[in-house]
């Protein structure tokens, strides 16, 4: 049985990570569409992040270190957007506590940690708290794919 060199295997794995990144972008876009995630400017942030990640994916596939570096920076920006998304979803849930009939009269009297826990664990509010983390996961895949040199071997 003919085994590929470790270098070839690494290249295959990294290309696979890029493919997973592309699938992740498409899946996240489909999910956002399903949620009708465009009510107001803030809900457009993940759409922008997906567009940035798509550009980053193309950049890491291009030959040249500059393009790859730019792709990495863009992927890191998407990671930051992902963290922002998680925080924003928790805040939305927190602000929704008083609207929930179970807490309409008592929300403001609950201890602060309890309120934040209810918001973070989505016991109040409509926002899936950690769903924006999918963006971060996809960006992380792309970052991993850039470790170890260019994805297209130089032709001699």
């Amino acid at each position, binding site marked *: 049985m003919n085994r590929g060199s470790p270098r070839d295997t690494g290249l295959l794995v990294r290309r696979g990570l890029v493919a997973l990144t592309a699938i992740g972008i498409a899946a996240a876009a489909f*999910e956002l569409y399903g949620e009708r995630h465009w*009510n*107001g400017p803030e809900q457009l942030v993940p759409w922008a992040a997906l567009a940035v990640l798509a550009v980053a994916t193309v950049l890491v596939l291009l030959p040249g270190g500059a393009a790859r570096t730019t792709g990495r920076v863009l992927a*890191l920006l998407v*990671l930051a957007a992902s963290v922002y998304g*998680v925080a924003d979803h928790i805040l939305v849930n927190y*602000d929704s506590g*008083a609207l929930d009939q179970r807490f309409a009269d008592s929300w403001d009297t609950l201890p602060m940690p309890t309120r934040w826990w209810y918001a973070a664990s989505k016991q109040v509010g*409509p926002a899936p708290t950690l769903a924006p983390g999918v963006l971060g996961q996809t960006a992380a895949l792309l970052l991993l794919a850039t470790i170890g040199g260019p994805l297209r071997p130089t032709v001699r």
Partner: protein
Amino acid sequence: MTTIASRLPLLCGATALAVVLAGCGGTTSARAAPSASTAASTSADDSTIDDSDEAADDTAAAGAKVSANTASEDEISDALEQAGVNNPERWAEEVVEYRPYPATDPNLTKLRDNLAKYNPGQTTVDKIVSALTP
């Protein structure tokens, strides 16, 4: 090679953070739909929690309807307040956020579906809708 080695900690750190967040995100995302439907069903089940006397006020407020599609947030807030809705400013935000509403649906089904995510109770939703027209 030295460059790669020097960048590895940064990449690994960012990756670890993202994987943790995303791993949880997938689970939470999967829970989102049932959670929303649970909220909706809970709101229906617990509708008796709201004071039935307040529901009677709906009739009194019925004459002061404003358009959910075109009225300003302040106007909607005033109308909701007159209808006896608690937190009228906050609910007015939600009404504006989920625009537009079909003109052919006087029952504002789209608004009802979106408000149910907040588990406000059937009576509160009825009060809100009673103050609005498409």
